[in-house]
């Protein structure tokens, strides 16, 4: 078993123990995640990197409870996601987990502020306009609150998506290639925003292809063939890029 743990704090925000996830069966079976144990400490930002097909996204989906694991345990704080029912997972997505994706995934028919308010409304509360505006202001989007997604640039849509993820004050924010569809200027804005969130105590787990994005994180976990093969802490863009080239070679 490959175990690369950060120095163990009181209780990790997310912890995976011996997690396996296989797609297909028989000769065509692919082990996307192969016996991985890793912990993501509270208040830190961890990047997950690796060559294409290394199992990064599957690892993120398993950690967030979006995908069932074949073996092992996934803990969000002290909650075991592997045994949670669909209703319990829904509750967790409303209150303790936030998501940001490469393709933004905003609801096209709703304005920015309606998108941000959506998770709270689904949870049964009716957020005040000022509450929602405050979250949008935190990502620099207060003046675009009444715009629909198609009226916003990619970077602006991603900031709204981050605001939507943060409005429930989740314990962990899972981000899958959050800068993947953005130009470098917008990417820098989004990364700076995420850094300020971590400074305020937020835990972030982020899958990325971009060494510059990974270098913004506190730590980088490297995957190959579904296994954790390395971990860098406080690395520069060059360190991350060199390590990635070595892995792909």
């Amino acid at each position, binding site marked *: 078993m490959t175990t690369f743990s950060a120095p163990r704090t009181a209780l990790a925000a997310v912890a995976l123990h011996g997690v396996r996830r296989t797609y297909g069966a028989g000769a065509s079976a692919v082990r996307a995640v192969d016996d991985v144990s890793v912990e993501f400490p509270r208040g830190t930002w961890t990047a997950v990197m690796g060559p294409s097909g290394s199992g990064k996204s599957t690892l993120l989906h398993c950690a967030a409870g*979006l995908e069932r694991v074949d073996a092992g345990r996934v803990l969000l704080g002290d909650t075991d996601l592997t045994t949670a029912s669909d*209703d319990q997972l829904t509750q967790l*997505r409303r209150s303790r987990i936030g998501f940001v994706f490469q393709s933004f995934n905003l609801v096209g028919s709703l304005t920015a502020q309606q998108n941000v308010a959506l998770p709270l409304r689904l949870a049964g509360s009716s957020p005040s306009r000022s509450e929602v505006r405050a979250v949008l202001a935190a990502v620099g989007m207060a003046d675009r609150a009444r715009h629909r997604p198609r009226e916003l640039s990619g970077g602006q849509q991603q900031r709204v998506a981050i605001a939507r993820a943060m409005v429930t004050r989740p314990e962990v924010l899972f981000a899958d290639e959050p800068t993947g569809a953005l130009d470098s200027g917008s990417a820098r804005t989004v990364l700076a925003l995420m850094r300020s969130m971590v400074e305020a105590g937020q835990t972030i787990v982020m899958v990325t292809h971009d060494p510059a994005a990974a270098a913004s994180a506190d730590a980088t976990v490297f995957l190959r063939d579904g296994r954790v093969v390395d971990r860098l802490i406080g690395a520069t863009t060059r360190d991350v890029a060199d390590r990635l080239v070595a892995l792909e070679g």
Partner: protein
Amino acid sequence: MLRLSWSSFVERWALFVGALVTVCFGVALVQSSLLVLISAATYQLPADLSVLERARYGEGTAIAITLSALTLAFSAFLAVFIVSSTFAFTVAQRRRDLALLRLVGGSRRQLHRLLVGEAVLLGGLGAALGIPVGLVVMRFQSGLLTMLGFAPPGFAAEWRNWILGVSAGVGIGVALAGVLVAASRAARVQPLEALRDTGESARVMTVGRWVIAGVFAAGAIALVVLAPIGGAGGAPPMAINAALCASVAMSAISPVLVPVVSRLLPSGAGVITGLAGANLRDGVRRSAATAAPLIVLVGLVLGQSVALASFASAGELDQRASTVADLVVEADGPVGPRVAAVAGVAAHSTEVEVPVTVTFTYDDDVDVEGGSGLVVDPVAYARFHPGTDAVAGLGGNAVVAGPGRGAGTPGSSGELRIGDTAAGPLHVVAEVPSRTGGGADLLLPGALVPADLLAQAPSRTFVELLPGADPATVAGALAGIGEVSTLDAWASRDAAARNATSISIFLVVMGLGAAYAVIGVINAGVIGAAARRTEFAVLRSTGLTRMQVVRAALVESLAVTGIGLLLGVGAAAGTFVAVAMSTAAMIGIPTITVPWAFVIAVGVGAVAICGVTSVITTVAGTRGNPVSLLAARE
């Protein structure tokens, strides 16, 4: 949730307009048929009508009631079927949106509530639009009934205030019935599906579809097996309903059948055809949703038209076989003595047709039967209609059950009325064999009918010539009495006249139903294309010209139409078998008559409608710069 329903409704209006149109026309048809039915059932004939007119319109009103009831049942069936298939399709097209809601914390119950909320919204709006449209349809239906002679001039269906509640209930009811299964299914969507861009991640062929297919296929088989023992009255509806059941079964398993049949598309016929074939198989849900209303349209129209034409042919053959005569004279009143006086006539049988009503009284029940009576001379009748020796029992107030069998069986007694005139008691003493094409319900002795009524009533006189007499000469001499025809010419004219009612019924019921099914076909085309803008943009950015994209979509649409037509014919095949078996049981010869001109018109019409819909929607869907559309998506 209601606000989310409303905003997604506003955003994806193109998708919802299709569903709205189906609800609107469903409500309009059901409302109109219901109002016409009630108006016909409560209609008081004008007081100034003569006895015979009164009887004729009385009979017509009975047909109008049956007809409206049939249209009502058929509209309700189509409304539920087409609205369900449209709603299921619109829900499936939004699978990714729904998964996204799950991703941000939406529960299954909330998704279910969202979709049901939309259905209530659409049902309510559809009903609001359908109520005024229904008034137009009602005027049309009333006019049609008058035009076809089932209702007297001046008949108009009446508005009733309570229909507002019924129509609103129908709109919301069919929308809910249509969405419930789709909503339960969509609520099970996994949040991860929001991250996949495939769109078609769900299995299309579900257990529910297999169950529906199984139940309706079993129903179709049962009807095919039972039709031959149903007799002249039971066989036609059973044969026609076999196609109805089979087409629902075929629609349910179309996700399995469409890809199989699509493999028949010529491979290696060029990149456009190859692309169309691949799209056809990949977009199974879209292909199946387009084929479903086509299957029902073709199955029903073909099944019903072939059944009616075949039973009419069988009736004509039967009529021809059960009558022996050289000439037929059609005139008014008992013209027998005048025919007998013509040189060259060896024998004749004059049969005068009068409208009759018989009131049978049983221990605790009164049964009133209406129909047609034929005043005959028993000896002459038996001579011209072999096998009807039982007619010899006629005389006094003893009557015989006729080949149409509509009023009484041997042993029953009742009170006879000819038109509005009481004609005293009668006893049914015997029966002649029944005939496929129908005919008189009662055979009556001349003494039972007042002479003045008899003189006005239409008659036909079968004539046998003396050996060596020249038919043309005798016909010329008979022409002064009435219209003279050969037996063959009369038999086919008589069959056509009997069939005219069935054809009118077919036109009213099927015409409206077919128009509704056509709306369903267009809808599926529009909804399918609405979600394909990105796919079209990808094709254009790959190097296809706009025309090539339009052509590929057209080839795909024509292939789906072909498959729909083929499966529709397959559904109608159940009716063909039932008709062949039933006619064989009735007249000894399996009879299938296909009204080719009509069938070809339906096929060409379906291809044209689907083709035009495809071209228009693809041209609309490829407007704008493909690269900017793809970039905007990122």
